[in-house]
């Protein structure tokens, strides 16, 4: 058997975090009718909520001293400070500054979470996946169209 050490292998560590929040899909660039047409029920002026789940995947060499890519306590604390504390039990449109400008579709929520977690100091952020419900999920790996590497 050719023994390969974890340090030399491509390994991603993924952790799932739930949060609950409400949002309303409404674009200031569209008329009332167009908003209704584009977003349907999600355009309800009072908003509505979801139990979101965020999957955060990080990569990096496995530290032989700890056997870890990153200490989960560090990852948990960073995700809590950057995302869960500011997002959980909020109305995203009003209470998260970025969504006063941007429609909080789960695509945009996913990109915003990626942007907030990219600075994690202990490992490389590979992927953010957001489940809006158990049936809808959105993934972002930091790529833009045409920049596939």
């Amino acid at each position: 058997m050719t023994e390969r050490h974890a340090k030399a292998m491509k390994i991603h560590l993924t952790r799932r975090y739930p949060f609950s929040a409400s949002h309303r899909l409404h674009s200031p660039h569209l008329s009332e009718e167009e908003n209704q047409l584009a977003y349907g029920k999600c355009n309800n002026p009072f908003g509505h909520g979801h139990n979101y789940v965020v999957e955060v995947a990080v990569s990096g060499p496995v530290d032989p001293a700890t056997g870890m890519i990153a200490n989960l306590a560090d990852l948990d604390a960073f995700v809590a400070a950057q995302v869960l504390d500011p997002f959980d039990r909020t109305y995203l449109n009003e209470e998260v500054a970025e969504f006063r400008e941007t429609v909080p579709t789960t695509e945009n929520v996913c990109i915003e979470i990626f942007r907030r977690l990219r600075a994690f100091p202990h490992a490389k952020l590979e992927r953010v996946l957001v489940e809006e419900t158990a049936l809808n999920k959105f993934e972002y790996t930091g790529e833009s169209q045409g920049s596939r590497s």
Partner: protein
Amino acid sequence: MALPARQSPKLRIRGQPPRIESAMVYITRKIEFSASHLYNNPALSPEENRRVFGKCNNPHGHGHNYVLEVTVAGDPDPRTGMVLDLKELKRVLQDEIMERMDHRFLNYEVPELAGKIPTCENIAATIWNLLEPKIARGHLHRVRLYETPDLFVDCYGEKNGSAR
């Protein structure tokens, strides 16, 4: 400039579509095993071990129901339509993983993990090393190991391995 009027597409069906000569297909088999472990690095002091590993440093150990998803990639054999015989994969998983790890204390009873801290990362890498040479058809693409439903590791083998 005026665009030409769009023409209605004409559906032309000429018998069967051509057979795809070669297609990479990924097949995944899942198993579950239960095992205990603890995290302790003898090079660190007891205080450092507690600080780095927290509750996982409990000397009595603790356990998980691990879920392992093994993905094999390959071109289906034109005679059987199979990437590999799932019976064969089931047997490999039984012999290599279940026999070794199920209902074991990973630190003390799995020689491949001796001297390593049995984190999800290291267990997944060890499982990769055990399975990779045993896959008779296709090739091992990914080992995904869930320690809990909210924590998993994906291992894709050698970082700079040949592109597959």
